[in-house]
């Protein structure tokens, strides 16, 4: 009986702990994903800024975006040197791709999402997007008159980010299961220890009340209610009061019977 109640408490503790650890895990993974994403985009931001500087040097010399030289080669070096980089593209203010490490994209229009992110990039001119299949980091290109003439954008694989998050998530899930199991055992033992005495109190109370009920329902009997085990002072006083109530009723009834018998004797 006592194990049943302790098990209920322990299982509740375990459920609540699982929720607590689940929350901790989800929020931690969220923080990890954000930080790792920032670390990755910081690296690609450097690459994008490096390319931007090289392009802007040529723009300052009066060259147009379509006539810049050596830049596509530099972009290619970066893409070949880092397997996480998909493509690096340069597009003009209309969104038309002028240079790309994947030449099949040249002449295409970039998505409206990119254009919006670029437009909203503000004074710093750096923008970033996290799309379903890839991350994008971009930087605005300004000519010598400080006019925005386009942007350079780097698309990188989300796979590393997603895999890292997935791996950490799996590890945390496994660790969480172990922690919950250990905690469940500790909670069960702890609950048993804490509830042992209160449950014994309740069992004693139950037995004691049953004894009082038996006594009340019997007309005659010799067994007394043993309240010595009951630790609750209030309950012991209560049982005494029940006894006094019953005694008073018995005394009153006996008195009435006696009167009745005397009356019957007289008549």
């Amino acid at each position, binding site marked *: 009986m006592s194990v049943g109640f302790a098990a209920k*408490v322990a299982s509740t503790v375990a459920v609540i702990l699982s929720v607590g650890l689940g929350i901790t895990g989800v929020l931690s993974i969220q923080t990890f994903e954000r*930080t790792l994403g920032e670390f990755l985009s910081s690296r690609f931001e450097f690459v994008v800024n490096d390319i931007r500087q090289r392009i802007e040097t040529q723009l300052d010399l009066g060259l147009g975006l379509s006539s810049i030289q050596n830049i596509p080669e530099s972009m290619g070096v970066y893409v070949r040197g880092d397997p996480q980089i998909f493509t690096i593209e340069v597009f003009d203010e209309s969104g038309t791709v002028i240079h790309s490490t994947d030449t099949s994209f040249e002449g295409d229009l970039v998505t409206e999402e990119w254009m919006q992110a670029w437009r909203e990039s503000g004074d710093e001119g750096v923008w970033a997007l996290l799309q379903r299949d890839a991350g994008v980091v971009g930087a605005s290109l300004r000519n010598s008159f400080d006019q925005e003439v386009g942007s350079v954008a780097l698309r990188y694989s989300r796979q590393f980010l997603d895999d890292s998050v997935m791996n950490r998530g799996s590890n945390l899930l496994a660790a969480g299961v172990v922690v919950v199991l250990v905690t469940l055992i500790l909670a069960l033992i702890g609950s048993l220890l804490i509830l042992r005495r209160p449950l014994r109190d309740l069992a004693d109370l139950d037995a004691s009340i049953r004894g009082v009920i038996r006594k009340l329902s019997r007309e005659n009997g010799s067994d007394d209610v043993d309240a010595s085990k009951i630790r609750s002072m209030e309950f012991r006083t209560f049982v005494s009061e029940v006894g006094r109530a019953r005694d008073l009723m018995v005394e009153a009834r*006996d008195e009435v019977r006696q009167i009745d018998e005397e009356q019957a004797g007289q008549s």
Partner: protein
Amino acid sequence: MTGEKLRIDPGPANPLEELGGTMASDGIVDRPGVVLFRIVTLTAVLLLISQIAFAWYSLKGFEQVLKPQLERKGEVVARAVGELIEFSVKDLEIPPEKLAGVDDYFRQIMGTNLEIEFMGLLDGEGNVFVSTGIAPEALAELGFDMAGFGTDADGPSQTKGDRIAAAFPVTVSGKTVVGLLVGISTEYVSNRLSDIYFDVITVIVVSWLVTIEFMVFFMNTRITSPLQSLSIAIKRGIGGVFSDRLVVQTRDEVGRVSSRLNELLHALQQRYEDFRFELREVRNAQLDRQIARKIQGIKTRVDGRYRFFGGEEIRPSSSIQIRVPLFLLMFSEELSRPFLPLFINRLAPTDSAISTEFLVGFPITLFMLVAAVFTPIGGGLVDRFGARRVFLMGAVPAAIGYFGTFLTQGYLDFIFWRGLSGVGFGLIFIAAQAWVAENSKGKNSATEMSVFVGAVFVGMICGPPFGGIIAGRLGYETTFLLSAGLAVVSGLIVFSILDDTQRPKNRLGAVQSLIGWRMLFRDPRFLAITLFAAVPGKFITAGFYFYLLPLYLNEIGNSQSVIGWLMMLYGISTFAALPLASWIADRTGRYSLLVTSGVALTGAGCVLVHPALGLPGVNTAAVIAILGLGIGHALSLTSQLAMVRKAAERYRGAIGLTSAIGAYRLIERGGLILGPLVAAPLAIAFDLGTAIAGIGIITLAFVPLYFLTMVFADAEVDLSSQGETA
């Protein structure tokens, strides 16, 4: 015939003898709270230990992934810059020691890439040509072997002690003539990880609080409340009342004992029924009226001492039962806190003649205004229909409002749905306070009121971080759908758990209520509590905490994580200090002194932020001010509510308790409006630190006003009582 006596063996005369003199009588019925305390402590400790272990494990894993990413960044920088050096040295044939402007170039790179601690140019023998961010001797002493970089053994990065560096060696005829070294700041890694530590601490605190909240609720529903009902029945039995019946809601050990006690009471009532029947039969059979009267007298002797019929049902009910439903409602409302202005901004018409700032601020203000208006209205409804029904009445518009916000298509829709949620929020806010007040034991007013304040603060602490995450993952609208679901769950809990069939009936008419309000507003004590304690409390919260503090913390260079954590300190400190503050209040009965100290502490904390005081440490002054606000509010809030309750009791019959609380809440909101109105010009006229100190000084000015009004009110009461004596 004489019936046998029911003799109770009471055990040892002194329970201490039984227990070896070490423990007084402490059965579970006498002290049900002890079991609750122990189980909740066990849960709290287990959760804390397991979460710390779990967080440590996760952070270790994060570090393993994040550090190599910084090395990769160093490598990218080294390669990009190294290629320029290589071009200059190999193609332009400039000797490395003659390269000009390298230091400036390095500084420029380091300025925009904070994770780079130093950069340097060295030859193959370790001679330093250029060093930026580190002294040349120190760079040479680090002993990075330029020739070793790029080999299979070392790769493009090397680690020396706690320094990590990436390099790009330039080789001519197989000999390293110069190499670029890019040192990664280990401090940067620590700083980024410490940001995560702060986030994780936030997570632990949030989930810990949520867990404790639910555990207290569970234990209260399953153990404490039924045991308290059992204790009430036993106490009433000691007083001679055996007519009650316990309402049993659980089938466990506690439920079994309660059922058994019901059986006992039933058996006793049956016994009395038999006794009464026998006496009636004997009395009715008597021809002599005197004898019949004598028998009636014997019955009256029993009836005078004991009561066996016409009792009440004792239902497990406690102020704590409202905690989880209220927490869920607060939580659901606070979920949208981090993104609400952004969401409104997205919905606001772009071609409007009205400023965007106003369009964004209007729905937020409207929500607060509607909630404020419906708080006193809800107070009247509670007095009439009870807290449970009004809570349920409030949960319906709150849930519909959140659901409507989820479906919202435009700015005007949004305003309507938020207004509807505001109606629900106002009703629920007052109903929850009324439930706590109705179910409090009287002498522990502040402690009972801390149940309400605690639930509100836990919701305020936990909601925003969760809301931010859910909004980030599932979108702003979905967060409102979750809020709607939580409001429904909250209502269902209230519907199934709360039972106010025994609530005191208080049906005051509208005219009577108006008279009550007038009496209340003419009471200097009530005015002092509301105008000089509650209003400055909200004033400093809105002016300092909501408005100036985030700007100030950002200005002194804290990251978003640290700002979030520091802001959370307010809720945590209030929540932590509440039990002690309310215990002191109830123990000493010096509610007014605690209110004064609380208001003074909140103001004094802000004054310390003044730049002229120059406290050491970047965040010291801000932390003191936040803790001052949190602890000050803990001292003040529950005592204020206890005093409002006492004020309402003085006009019992004229005004209901909930209406009084409603009036107090309505005036209190004035502080929320005043706060930003005063803080904004202060921030424009002075620096942020001085503005915060200004808010503190204005708050402190309320202390003597409150104190003098209370002294005046007490003197008035003394005079009137002397007059009555005379």
